[in-house]
């Protein structure tokens, strides 16, 4: 089981501002927030994790899974996103973010999924999870290269969340030729010195005159 300790998207705590980049950005987020009922129809949902979800709802979890499949497609040597449990890892790590950031990320996920916004930007009026892999790639590329800063920012937030949730996992290390931390260095039982009259243990940080 991969660790659930995970890196957050750079969207993290400071993403708030990107929703306020003018009226258009605000309108986009309003759609993401639920007004775009047309586009929210018929999502493709994936099975929920047996442990349940802490941050995402079923749809959000499914959208993150769909993004992960495009960010890290099935490939020999790379463990599948299902095996690494990317959407699950992302759910757990977002728990540690503040409420405002979580809300914004959820809106962003709904915005990507929403068929109305896809239509608005020249795509098909279908939910992201329902598009073919090629069409999903195109939507992601449109976000990545958009002339609208708010979409480029949103793309980065989602991309980082998903990639970090995959590549922070030791399961991914073999695929990238990384052997992991060298053994024998981490001292998980090392005593913790806090002073209070206890003699400071010897170590590399201690400096004695003439020790050079």
């Amino acid at each position, binding site marked *: 089981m991969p660790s659930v300790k995970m890196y957050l998207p750079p969207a993290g705590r400071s993403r708030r501002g990107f929703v306020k980049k003018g009226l258009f950005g605000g309108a986009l987020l309003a759609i993401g927030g639920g007004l775009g009922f047309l586009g929210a129809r018929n999502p493709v949902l994936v099975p929920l994790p047996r442990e349940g979800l802490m941050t995402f709802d079923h749809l959000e979890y499914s959208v993150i899974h769909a993004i992960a499949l495009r960010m890290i497609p099935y490939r020999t040597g790379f463990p599948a996103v299902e095996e690494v449990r990317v959407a699950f890892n992302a759910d757990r790590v977002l728990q540690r973010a*503040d409420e405002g950031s979580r809300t914004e990320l959820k809106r962003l996920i709904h915005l990507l999924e929403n068929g109305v916004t896809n239509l608005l930007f020249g795509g098909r009026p279908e939910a992201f999870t329902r598009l073919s892999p090629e069409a999903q790639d195109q939507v992601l590329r449109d976000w990545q290269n958009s002339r609208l800063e708010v979409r480029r920012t949103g793309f980065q937030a989602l991309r980082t969340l998903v990639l970090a949730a995959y590549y922070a996992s030791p399961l991914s290390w073999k695929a990238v030729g990384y052997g992991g931390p060298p053994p024998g260095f981490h001292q998980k039982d090392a005593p913790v010195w806090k002073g209070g009259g206890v003699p400071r243990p010897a170590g590399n*940080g201690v400096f004695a005159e003439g020790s050079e």
Partner: protein
Amino acid sequence: VNQGRIYTGDELEANKVVDCDVCVIGSGSGGAWLAHELVTQGLNVVMLEEGGYFTKRDFDLTESTAYPTLYQDLGNRTTEDLSISILQGRNVGGGTTVNWCSSFRTPKRILDLWRERHGVEGLDEKTLEPHFAAVERRLRIKEWPADRMNRNNQVLWDGLGKLGYARGLIKRNVHNCANIGYCGMGCPIDAKQSMGVTLIPDAVEKGLTVFANTSARTLQLDGRKATAVQCEVFDPRRDAPSGRKLTVRAKATALCCGAINSPALLLRSGVDGGGQVGKRTFLHPVVVMAAMFEEPIQAFAGAPQSVYSHHFADRGTDRMGFFIEAAPVHPMLAATALTGFGTSHQDLLEKLPFLHASIALTIDGLHPEEEGGTVELRDEGYGRIKINYPLTERHFEAFRVACKEMAKVQFAAGAKKVISLHYDPVTMTSAAEVAKLDAARWEKLRVRVMTAHQMGGCAMGKDPETSVVSSQLKVHDYDNLFVVDGSVFPTSLGVNPQETIFALARWGAQHVKAAV
């Protein structure tokens, strides 16, 4: 002398009021040296640190542990628009726990500029010399031997040499370093002479009291005096307020929270310095070039930074200079920093061991037009800070030139392919193709920009109209309130900042002591 004590948030079971001579807020490069000097001179000092107290016991050398535990905003601090990722430490020891050990004295031209343009007095090479000497001795700062250089730095060294560009070996604050390359995740053998294993325990032995997991929320002010620091204690298991409060009543108070959190604390306390607090924030904005080699580079192994080039540090008055170093490449940082997605992204990641990374750090704030960024408070949310940093034409000109020069260096060292970190990456297979970078889109959020150096925001200077603290580091209009960290720099440095902050704090201790 009675030994002091490091308390963690879980040890504070009731609200508490503490009296002392000096309250030092922050435990990084500034706070640790300042506190050490003051306790050495017999003062009763309390240090506050919002982050946790982590030691080699906690450093398991994985990115998934290190970033959320040891860095600000769980490793995700960014500018408001996400155009610049900001790596900044948050723990007992601050940035020194996680930085890459590079140590430089302040360049003379920077000290001259501060004096001539910003009215800084009494801070020259001669004054700082004994402080640099003491810092270098205590922290065993020495040039990293060329024969221990890792391949990632060797590439840079070779390429710079072939092009005849100025190059040098970096000095590092390490002792008995095993050269494994995990400095950014906390040193597992205390070889890195970070504040958490050197100056802070030295000072605790001399009586320093440290409260970790303790967030200074506001300064209590009365006329020209800071009378108390109001703090919230965090539960270390949740890294969230425990409900307990700590109040520190001190004869003098020093903010050492770094260039983003120090101005934020002043602003939370209603001190805006006539609008100067949180202005002129400088970041050494960094662009990266990745290069693929036929032979393994293993840029995740070995001392992360041991080679530098200041060849382009001074590009004349009209253009922003930059300096070049190498960067370690661990999987998660590489995956998120490298651009693109899908198959092309996997193609790059699959060759991680063959990847070299050079970085160019732009030297911002030297030209009068370069006003840097801003730090502001948010209306809502717990302690959230708004950081804005406009990237201008001057930045993008420097980024473009820097990326071209890094590509040339990488090809000169034998790179088979060089890739920019544009969202739409520019890929080159020979030095003849570096001009392709001229056609790339040099705009924000179209190319990755990051920083690990935060400076400014409480600028030092003579004129209260244009600065926040005096040349004695005292906040204008207050008699016993100081800022002692990188936020007092009136400009960026043009070198990695830790050693300047060490020396500045050691020198500045006399001024803080004089206010007690």
